[in-house]
């Protein structure tokens, strides 16, 4: 399989009046052609900032301190703004969480979907129009000729998200980045959108990166998953590996704290006590150490190395060190 994207050791920080917030602290993620990869994490994990870094859409006070992002042989970190504009919407499309605010209320849907085409391509008016109609059909909006003349407020939430997807895909990008695309939508609409994304991935041979906190969504859509916490990737691997053979205590914690509706008996949820770390003064060692049931001395002092558990399965946890004690993930306490 061919590699499409390689994020290497990215560090991104923000300058605030309170000091430097280190949002992303050494993140590396791979993406192959035609696959869907999930980035899972909670607020403050750095998942959204990582993608904004990739798209070079950081706020004025944001800065890439280190690292490279290789996309089709080019390092996106080093490109000029003009060169990035040529890539956004063209080679890489992005959809955001809230379809209510991501669309311009005073332009028609047709105009907004045409915009990337007009900017990146040289097509005649009628060619553009045909492409827009085709795309609207592809994303499941009926009567596209009529609807493309309508305004965002005439569409429901699910429909607007489809419009966003149409806009992101109109130039047939190789990569689609979806930042919490279904969080604001109802469950049945969410199911429709996820099916659509799966479908489009096949039809257009497109890679997808989906950012979410919903483990159900990644289980359904992604072949590989990266789990982020406190600005770093703590575990990554194939979906089955992450769900059935998780290695990192944070991943264990996440899996234990969500209910599985298919189970008959009611099991007590086991939450992860505590709150995420303050990235103004990030911990020196593993960011999860203070909430971890199996934290050792070394965890507080040193950032864990990335251990290769099995093919494609990596985990940044000191428990994998040969000298570390063996633990049983089903313990509630420790395993001394």
């Amino acid at each position: 399989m061919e590699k499409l994207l390689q994020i290497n050791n990215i560090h991104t920080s923000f300058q605030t009046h309170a000091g430097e917030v280190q949002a992303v602290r050494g993140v590396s993620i791979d993406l192959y052609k035609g696959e869907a990869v999930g980035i899972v994490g909670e607020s403050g994990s750095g998942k959204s900032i990582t993608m904004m870094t990739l798209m070079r859409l950081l706020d004025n006070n944001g800065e890439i301190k280190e690292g490279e992002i290789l996309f089709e042989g080019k390092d996106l970190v080093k490109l000029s703004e003009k060169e990035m504009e040529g890539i956004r919407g063209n080679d890489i499309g992005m959809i955001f969480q809230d379809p209510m605010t991501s669309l311009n209320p005073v332009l028609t849907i047709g105009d907004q979907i045409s915009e990337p085409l007009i900017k990146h391509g040289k097509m005649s008016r009628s060619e553009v129009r045909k492409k827009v109609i085709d795309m609207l059909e592809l994303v499941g909006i009926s009567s596209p000729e009529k609807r493309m003349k309508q305004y965002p407020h005439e569409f429901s939430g699910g429909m607007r998200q489809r419009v966003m997807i149409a806009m992101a895909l109109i130039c047939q990008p190789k990569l689609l980045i979806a930042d919490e695309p279904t969080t604001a939508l109802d469950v049945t609409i969410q199911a429709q959108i996820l099916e659509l994304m799966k479908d489009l991935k096949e039809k257009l041979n497109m890679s997808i990166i989906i950012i979410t906190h919903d483990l159900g969504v990644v289980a359904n859509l992604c072949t590989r998953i990266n789990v982020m916490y406190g600005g770093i990737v703590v575990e990554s691997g194939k979906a089955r590996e992450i769900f059935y053979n998780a290695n990192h205590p944070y991943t264990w914690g996440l899996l234990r704290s969500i209910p599985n509706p298919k189970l008959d008996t009611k099991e007590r949820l086991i939450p992860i006590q505590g709150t995420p770390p303050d990235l103004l003064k990030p911990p020196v060692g593993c960011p999860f150490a203070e909430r971890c049931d199996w934290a050792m001395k070394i965890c507080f002092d040193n950032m864990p190395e990335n251990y290769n558990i099995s093919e494609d399965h990596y985990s940044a946890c000191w428990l994998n060190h040969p000298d570390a004690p063996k633990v049983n993930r089903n313990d509630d306490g420790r395993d001394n």
Partner: protein
Amino acid sequence: MEEKDTLIEVKNLSKFFDVNKGMFAKKKSYVKAVDDVSFIIKKGETLGIVGESGCGKTTMGRTLLKLYEPTAGEIIYNGKDIANLKNNDMLPYRRKMQMIFQDPYASLNSRMSIGDIIAEPIEIHKLMNKIERLERVRYLLNKVGLNPEDVRRYPHEFSGGQRQRIGIARALAVQPEFIVCDEPISALDVSIQAQVVNMLEDLQDDLGLTYLFIAHDLSMVKHISNKIGVMYLGKLVEIAESNELYKNPLHPYTKALLSAIPVPDPDMALQNKRIMLEGEIPSPIDPPEGCRFRGRCKYAMPKCAEAQPELKDMGGEHKVACFLY
């Protein structure tokens, strides 16, 4: 098995909102947010209500607490119908019936210290003097897992999960019997949700509380509720005991809803046959005649356009409103 008492009985509750305001509107247009809903909640139980946008679950929760005046129907609390009580007479009931809100950032007055926020209900009901109040506030903070020394601090100093606990402490201040939980965990991170849900369960066991749990996260609702009701466009379309609803859903909408939940399990996800619902959720303004769901229902029959189906008892407390049965 002891027969539990009924704490709340809701009969034919409706809440309509007038859309065409103004003195010159000729035709009155209504949003039938809640339409002829009936159910029972027994003491110590949790009734979960699920549904999507426009189904009316939040409106129903608020109408139950008389935050909105019901358009029609009865709300029988411990044997007394409170639906038509004036605001002044509602005061004793405002002790027994409380609410927890969705947005931890908007549900606390940012200008008040958390001590004052939690003490306010006690103050309003004139239950204790200042010293006793402070004691009670400290006790409540402890009970929800917060530091009693933080009494003087302000909401913005706390995280989302902690603020939600403060809201819960406020709800518990005057020893309620019944709490409406309106999407209490939707705005929280996944790992924090479990903390709050566990706490709600523990409090229920400890204090004998009765909950109405409104949410759109079906997995969480199943986890915490004894019974679940499914709402669609203002109507209660199905209600059953939790496990029964998941194992044996009867209403076409319930089936679609359940199959749409993304299960956090890759193997199960592959097996899951999704029932795709066509189309969008229609607008709740002036809904069409007949069954509200027929526009998206695979099994729609001519009968469905003529009348609205009533809730029919299918045995074992499982009721469904559908002409298929």
